């Protein structure tokens, strides 16, 4: 598949934001990205505006907020997806097509039951939660992530193992929680842990480098098949060096650290 043939659906509902950056990031690596409202996908739009999820190669849930983040962050978006196009999304995932959720998008994927998805493609009720940061407030700053994927996750497939990336975080509810005592071990065994927060020297993160108190410093996870990935930090915000905090002070690459996430999925699709 050629990059220009890759069609990305950046899905939104009322109150979604960051969809411009998400679409821009996919366009920057050569794909065609379209911002599509949920109603366009569930036949609640005029004929000319209707879209079919099947026609897309990648589904992306943008970060920011959605539906006022009432009830819980991402819960309303997830419920609307489940009610309107749950089976289409399930089929999309089962076809092995890549699904990315950033920040609010990660919260939506967890609420949808697409992550961690230990059993089956999509659980009926959430099997984890992205809960209020330990600090009890919105945390917004650069964070350093280590690629801990051992090769399964499509979105990290072109990133060298253990490589550190500086990617900004901005959220109030990013603490990955489960009541299952073996939760982290299961993720580890399945190669589902993609990114961990670390200190800039690569040592285990402490606050503020782990902005939310997430178990085992987890910043991003994928499903057991590796084609659905959710992460709290925003790779789409660092596509060029100019949006890095230290871009005038020794940051050498012309490319931003977030770019490899999008290049990974494009390289994966090229091989298909």
């Amino acid at each position, binding site marked *: 598949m050629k990059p220009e043939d890759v069609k990305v659906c950046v899905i939104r509902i009322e109150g979604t934001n960051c969809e411009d950056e998400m679409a821009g990031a996919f366009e920057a690596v050569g794909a065609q990205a379209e911002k599509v409202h949920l109603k366009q996908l569930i036949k609640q739009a005029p004929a000319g505006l209707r879209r079919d999820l099947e026609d897309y190669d990648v589904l992306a849930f943008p970060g920011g907020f959605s539906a006022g983040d009432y*009830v*819980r962050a991402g*819960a*309303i978006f997830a*419920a609307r997806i*489940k009610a309107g196009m749950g089976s289409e999304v399930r089929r999309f995932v089962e076809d092995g097509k890549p699904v990315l959720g950033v920040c609010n998008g990660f919260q939506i994927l967890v*609420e949808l039951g697409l992550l961690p998805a230990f059993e089956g493609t999509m659980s009926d*009720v*959430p*099997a*984890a*939660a992205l*809960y*209020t*940061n*330990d*600090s*009890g*407030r919105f945390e917004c700053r650069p964070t350093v992530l280590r690629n801990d994927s051992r090769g399964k996750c499509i979105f990290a497939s072109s990133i060298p193992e253990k490589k550190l990336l500086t990617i900004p975080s901005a959220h109030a509810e990013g603490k990955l*929680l*489960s*009541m299952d005592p073996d939760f982290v071990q299961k993720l580890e065994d399945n190669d589902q842990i993609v990114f961990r927060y670390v200190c800039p020297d690569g040592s285990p993160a402490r606050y503020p480098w782990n902005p939310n*108190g997430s178990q085992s410093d987890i910043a991003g996870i994928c499903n057991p098949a590796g084609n659905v990935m959710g992460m709290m930090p925003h790779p789409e915000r660092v596509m060029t060096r100019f949006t890095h905090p230290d871009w005038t002070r020794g940051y050498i690459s012309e490319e931003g650290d977030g770019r490899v996430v999008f290049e990974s999925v494009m390289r994966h699709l090229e091989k298909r």
Partner: protein
Amino acid sequence: MTVIEIRIELKKGVADPEGKNTRKTLESLGFEGIADVRSVKLFEVELDMPADDALKAGEEMCRKLLANPVIQNYRVTVR
């Protein structure tokens, strides 16, 4: 018309930063003897059905949207 009250609270063992922060602030205002402050969420839903059915509907609402069973417990009562 039946009005149900849906109370969503955090499970035991789940940290409650909002409650903790509120407690600290109350103490800084001079309130003494506070043993704990917990945050809970309350929804009132008006339903055009008898109480039994309303309770059942409330449970289903929690399962499908209002509560995340990983971190929250819920209680539905008729008001």
